[in-house]
């Protein structure tokens, strides 16, 4: 009996304390749901860098890592919504349905879903980055720097995001060098350093002297460094992993957007939005250009970067043909966002078929 009283006393104290804290602190609390571990140094890592920016701006944040895109996601989201979080960022495509489902149950909590397109309730926003703009720059560099005219490309999964990247890259490379050939290898993984390194090695052994990647680990740039060929960093600046090989990196920069949105929640100005930001808004960042690139190429890239940012140049400007020679985008036109979002065909000049 004695023990029971002590226990209930302690637990009621704890409860009281929790409620008091919750009542005093009216700060906005943001939660982040991650698909992978924050230690992947890729996709999730960059989102976590963004979360830290929110923290630095004076807001409280929590995160849950390694959440599967299943019923588990709903459970985690409900728990976060129940425990006093005002805004929840769900940072993987597969959280699309769970996010919308839970959003319906918690109309006072704001939900922000990355890379999705469903906004079924007024408290759900979506956001994504125009990484293909970065790949236009990489393609320009690759087409200029290659000597063998064979460019290797390690791809992850055949989804529009990746196909769009391959197309954007190839179009840009062909523009500066019509003789190039893009060899694509599908690794069917987002990150598995061993497999990625093996895929890169296969491409290098077959004569590729510039390697691009749409997988997340640094294994590919390290392999390029060992083999003495060029490569590009993915998601974060990978220069320190391969100082000689990495010409530049395309960085995912979520911080400004996250801070912006959390502030909007705090000010009460948050409203539903569909955001697709590119180089212009700073969501896609091009790292320092390596000094191995000739000066005229570097200035050309700088100009291209500025033009992409201002909208003067679009990555998908016609005429663009598909592999069979059918016109995709007419001369003088640019691909609209609908076409980009659902892009599942290669443009002319890409070799091979998209795995079905």
């Amino acid at each position, binding site marked *: 009996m004695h023990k029971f009283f002590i226990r209930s006393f302690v637990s009621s104290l704890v409860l009281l304390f929790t409620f008091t804290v919750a009542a005093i602190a009216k700060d906005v609390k943001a939660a982040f749901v991650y698909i992978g571990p924050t230690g992947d140094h890729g996709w999730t890592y960059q989102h976590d860098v963004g979360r830290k920016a929110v923290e630095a701006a004076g807001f409280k944040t929590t995160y849950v890592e390694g959440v599967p895109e299943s019923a588990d996601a709903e459970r985690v989201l409900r728990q976060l919504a129940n425990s006093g979080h005002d805004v929840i960022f769900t940072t993987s495509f597969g959280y699309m349905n769970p996010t919308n489902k839970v959003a319906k149950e918690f109309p006072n909590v704001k939900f922000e879903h990355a890379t999705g397109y469903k906004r079924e309730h007024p408290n759900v926003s979506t956001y994504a980055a125009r990484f293909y703009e970065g790949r236009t720059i990489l393609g320009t560099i690759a087409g200029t720097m290659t000597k063998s005219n064979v460019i290797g490309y390690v791809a992850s999964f055949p989804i529009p995001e990746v196909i769009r990247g391959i197309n954007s890259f190839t179009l840009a490379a062909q523009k500066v060098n019509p003789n190039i050939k893009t060899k694509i*290898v599908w690794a069917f993984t987002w990150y598995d350093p061993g497999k990625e390194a093996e895929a890169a090695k*296969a491409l290098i052994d077959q004569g590729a002297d510039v390697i691009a990647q749409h997988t997340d680990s640094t294994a590919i740039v*390290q392999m390029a460094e060992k083999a003495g060929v060029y490569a590009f960093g993915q998601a974060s600046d990978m220069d320190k992993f391969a100082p000689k090989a990495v010409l530049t990196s395309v960085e995912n920069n979520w911080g400004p957007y996250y801070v912006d949105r959390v502030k909007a929640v705090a000010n009460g100005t948050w409203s539903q939005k569909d955001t697709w930001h590119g180089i212009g808004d700073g969501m896609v960042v091009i790292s320092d250009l390596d000094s191995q690139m000739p000066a005229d190429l570097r200035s050309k890239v700088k100009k291209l970067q500025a033009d992409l940012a201002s909208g003067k140049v679009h990555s998908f400007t016609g005429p663009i043909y598909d592999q069979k020679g059918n016109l995709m985008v007419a001369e003088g036109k640019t691909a609209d966002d609908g076409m980009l979002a659902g892009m599942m065909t290669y443009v002319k000049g890409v070799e091979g078929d998209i795995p079905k």
Partner: protein
Amino acid sequence: MIIDINFIGLIIASIMASAVPLILASCGELITERSGVLNLGVEGMMIIGAISGFALMTVTGSLIIAIFGAMLAGVLISTIFAFLTQTLITNHVATGLALTIFGIGISAMIGKNFVGIPGKEFPVLFDGFKDTIPLLGPILFGHSIVFYFAFALPFITSYFLKKTKIGLIVRAVGDSPESASNQGINVRLVRYACILYGGAMSGLAGAYLSMIYTPQWIENMTGGRGWIALALVVFSTWNPIKILIGAMIFGGLTIIQFHMQAIGVRIPVQFLTALPYIVTIIVLVVISRDSRKIRLSTPSSLGKSFYKDN
């Protein structure tokens, strides 16, 4: 695509490099299993070796300390397994699975501070001779010391088990711990030693991944190779030389399918990706057709706890 002889040499060299961690971990586990202990914690011991090697390399700057430290870390974590299964007589399967989960968790915890740090370059031997001999040059030269050790290990293991007295004792303990015990052999001690040795080899396999193959730390970077290593032991019917063949087949199919993709062979990519697994199943089916042979080569007391020991 002109396929010249040096190109084939390069492919074989990549296949061998990818087989190294599998050979190391499998040969270690083979000794453990030959003593009658089934340790399913290979994946966990490997990942502990990977983070320990990488962390020690970053902190101390010494590759030698890092390599031996990784092996020691493998020994330490396998000591937990040995204590639980041999002294407290817990179930091998459950304890091994727990070891894997424990290893993945603790490596992620330690690894938090080591994400995003580039590894050091690991020295390779005989790099200058690479171009001297066509085909064989890239296969034989320009690899790390761990690479050469891995390819010697199956032969050393085979010699150890067949020709040495201690090897005989290990096999006796695995086949009939009761008889071995009656002969005055300390079964528990032998099994402890074999488990710790398996831990050291798994640790080395992990360090090879994080220090030599892809010099960096990423959570879960072993990516299931520990499980493949376990399967290879069964695949080899507890024969070290067959581990070598199995590891080459498994590593090789992944690399060959990448090459076929790059050449532009019109085979569905999904089929190519599944190929290593399909071949593994086929080989297992072929092997298991001779069930008598499997029964003969399986250590008789594998996975069974041994109580009567002083």
